[in-house]
């Protein structure tokens, strides 16, 4: 609880932080907020809300275009991670920066300037102290690769604490934890809080926010929606969640596209009882069932990191799974999330990229039919309005929007029966986004489309049915016509505020 004591000053004050990435994306737009010591401050928002960018600026990884930071009331410059560490800001990232074959103590000792001959002595002592102080039980000589994810996270926390962090930033810390590990983490955070440390907790999960946060700031599309103590929101938990969810996703969505009515046809994709594990062996897709028919767009809506990637990989065959995946006749087209690392070969030209997923069709005799390929490329470029001086341009010289148009041209011209589109407008400008949407709606007439996205506006505009995914399960499936009126509810579903009510 924040006291009204005048001496209780914020540890960190953020004023007017703005960050625009090349390509025009405004990640942070004039953000101001205060962080107080002895509090857990939750930073709440969907994907793309700007939470991680803001914290990356605070921890010195990025530099803001505008705005200032105040530490204990004094203005400071944070030009690098080293600066941030010196100011007592420590960050625990979503992807840990640990060295697997080294021990816990060695990882913590790295760069600390410890004694030459016995580098671990000080570290071991401090680990023991922290263990008692914060209930952080880690075995200092264990190798990182042998530790559980929860334990690894604790090593990251110790790394920050040992460098004198008074402000600890955690980016989606429970994304990789089991419920039990999450509870252990909360206990540790509680102890730190009582020691006067300030904790910034980035999350999209409402349950957690209500459980441990003292103060909440909700971000949406790069701006602060509101910033307030937890005590202010409504009495009951359910109401509190609704209010938060609606702040996160907004009350209304203005739909910009016209959608024709199309009668659905045959099933092009049927998934039953799907279980998929990620690279660490954790099950990230749990008992998922849904189907997609020709003539409809079925959207999987959820914050990134809830199993979507593994789901798509299983469907396209890049990852093993248990359960049933049935794909109808015809090809499956795939528009991947990583345009430049997966969807195209950046150093190859447009023609070479145009045949990436269908080159066998253009080389039936083992020889490439160059005439047909060039023809297809020219047609594709024209049809989908890819802006490029000529066919020989390399893919990496195109803008993001044009790369996506190229990929669309490629996948759609193959007349797939099923099209899987992952975050298709992520990072694109408005023009390109509209083009992508129009292309998808067009294709819908002749195919079934599985749209995986975290963008509520996009999903509501395009899809016929929506499956909301949270922690690897489809929480609910809605008709998009009714979804328009249930936005708050959808927000709750995306953030774990609603229990699984999926009807198979």
């Amino acid at each position, binding site marked *: 609880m924040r006291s009204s004591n005048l001496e209780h000053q914020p540890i960190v004050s953020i004023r007017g932080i703005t960050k625009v990435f090349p390509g025009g994306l405004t990640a942070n737009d004039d953000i101001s907020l205060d962080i107080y010591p002895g509090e857990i401050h939750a930073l709440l928002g969907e994907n793309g809300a700007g939470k991680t960018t803001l914290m990356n600026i605070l921890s010195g990884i990025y530099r803001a275009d505008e705005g200032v930071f105040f530490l204990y009331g004094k203005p400071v410059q944070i030009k690098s991670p080293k600066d941030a560490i010196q100011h007592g800001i420590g960050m625990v990232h979503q992807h840990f920066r640990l060295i697997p074959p080294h021990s816990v103590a060695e990882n913590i000792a790295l760069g600390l300037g410890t004694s030459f001959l016995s580098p671990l002595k000080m570290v071991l002592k401090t680990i023991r102290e922290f263990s008692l102080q914060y209930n952080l039980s880690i075995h200092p000589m264990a190798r990182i690769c042998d530790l559980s994810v929860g334990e690894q996270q604790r090593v990251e926390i110790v790394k920050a604490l040992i460098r004198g962090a008074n402000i600890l930033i955690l980016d989606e810390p429970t994304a990789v934890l089991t419920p039990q590990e999450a509870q252990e983490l909360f206990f540790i955070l509680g102890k730190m809080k009582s020691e006067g440390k300030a904790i910034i907790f980035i999350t999209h999960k409402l349950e957690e926010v209500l459980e441990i946060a003292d103060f909440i700031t909700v971000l949406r599309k790069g701006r602060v929606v509101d910033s307030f103590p937890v005590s202010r929101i409504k009495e009951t938990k359910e109401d509190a969640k609704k209010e938060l969810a609606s702040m996160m996703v907004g009350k209304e969505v203005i739909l910009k596209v016209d959608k024709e009515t199309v009668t659905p046809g045959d099933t092009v994709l049927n998934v039953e009882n799907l279980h998929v594990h990620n690279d660490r062996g954790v099950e990230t897709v749990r008992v998922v069932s849904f189907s997609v028919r020709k003539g409809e767009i079925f959207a999987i809506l959820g914050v990134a990191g809830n199993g979507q990637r593994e789901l798509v990989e299983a469907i396209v065959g*890049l990852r093993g799974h248990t359960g049933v995946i049935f794909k109808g006749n015809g090809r499956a087209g*795939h528009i*991947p999330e*990583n345009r430049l*690392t*997966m*969807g*195209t*070969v*950046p*150093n*190859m030209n447009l023609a*070479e990229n145009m*045949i*990436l*997923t269908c*080159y*066998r069709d253009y*080389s039936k005799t*083992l*020889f*490439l039919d*160059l005439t047909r390929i060039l023809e297809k490329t020219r047609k594709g470029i024209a049809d989908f309005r890819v802006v490029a001086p000529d066919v020989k341009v*390399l893919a990496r*010289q195109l803008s993001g929007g044009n790369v996506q148009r190229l990929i669309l041209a490629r996948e759609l011209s193959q007349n797939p029966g099923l099209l899987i589109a992952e975050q298709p407008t992520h990072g694109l400008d408005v023009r390109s986004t509209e083009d992508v949407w129009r292309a998808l709606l067009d294709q819908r007439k002749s195919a079934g489309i599985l749209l995986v996205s975290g963008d509520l506006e996009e999903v509501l505009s395009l899809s016929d049915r929506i499956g909301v995914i949270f922690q690897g399960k489809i929480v609910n499936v809605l008709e998009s016509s009714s979804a328009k009126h249930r936005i708050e509810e959808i927000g709750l579903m995306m953030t774990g505020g609603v229990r699984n009510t999926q009807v198979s």
Partner: protein
Amino acid sequence: MRNDRMRFLKIEKRENPSWKVIVGVSIAAILLAFFIIGFVFVGYGINPVKAYIEILIETVGNVYGLTQIIWQSIPLMLCGVGLLLAFKTSFWNIGAEGQLLMGAVAATWVTLFSGFPGFIMIPMIFAFGFAGGAVWGLLSALLKAKFRVNEVITTLMMNYIALNIVLYLIHGPWKGDEMRGFAYTNSFPESCCLPTIGITYIHWPTLLIGLLSICLIFLILTRTRLGYEVKVIGQSRQAARYAGIPYFRTIFWVMLISGGLAGIAGAGEVAGVHHMLRHPDQVSLGYGYTAIIVAWLARGNPPLVILTSFLFGAIYVAGDVLQLSFGFPFQIVNVFTGLILFFLISSESLMQYRITLRRKDD
């Protein structure tokens, strides 16, 4: 765009170095190497200008010199274009030397121990030479694709295994009857010796195969499905996975061809030049390693391999000239090759950036 902040210079990433820049820089690298070697000449009391003139006369300046260059460039051409293919798919085949030697071994077996009738000897020599090198290369491909063992290590180690196999054979089971202090096998019978052009050393069947291989690789890379798959894998394994391109199958064909061509080079050396299997350092004058630079310098263009293999063939002959006319050790060739390589790779790196003086208002 990445802007490094230095006090006086501004370094920006250059978009795409134009052809002119690439060629210009390559030639500059070669000339710089020549220039530095000049100092070594001076150190030995030899006038560098005189030396270079002598080299030019004896190499490209007369017919004999030219023929010398051509026959030395044959194995460089074959190994070089094979390596070019391997490098295109980012498979770092350092093992051309070993693949060459195994091709030589296979060819020797055919001539001395196979008992094939005379008229198919020469085709068999090439076929088995190809097979010997191909198998040797495929082993490394297998180790990488199935067991993830780095190909630099495996190909390198297999060079030395091959070298020792040859040593074993010429000192042991294949030791020739007429040993005169050195170890080598019996001489090849007439039917197994490759025909040469006139009195030169140029064993033209191998040369022909070399030129044909260049055309073949060029065709593969520009016009076939395999070439496309090779290039995608070489650029982005992730995209290759996405596109459904099978890694092992592609590497299989690449190393089959790359190793096989080196094997043919080896077969050509023993059947066309030496007419016997002898000490590995005489069968291959480091062709497998020099071919790496030959391939590199060609910058992914098979037809340029003709030029670059010719260039390095000329360097080998220049080394001979230096040895004969000036008593200079042949090893100078390695100094030269090493220097060129240094300058080439440095220039590659520097070509990525445009360095200009920082203006006042930056």
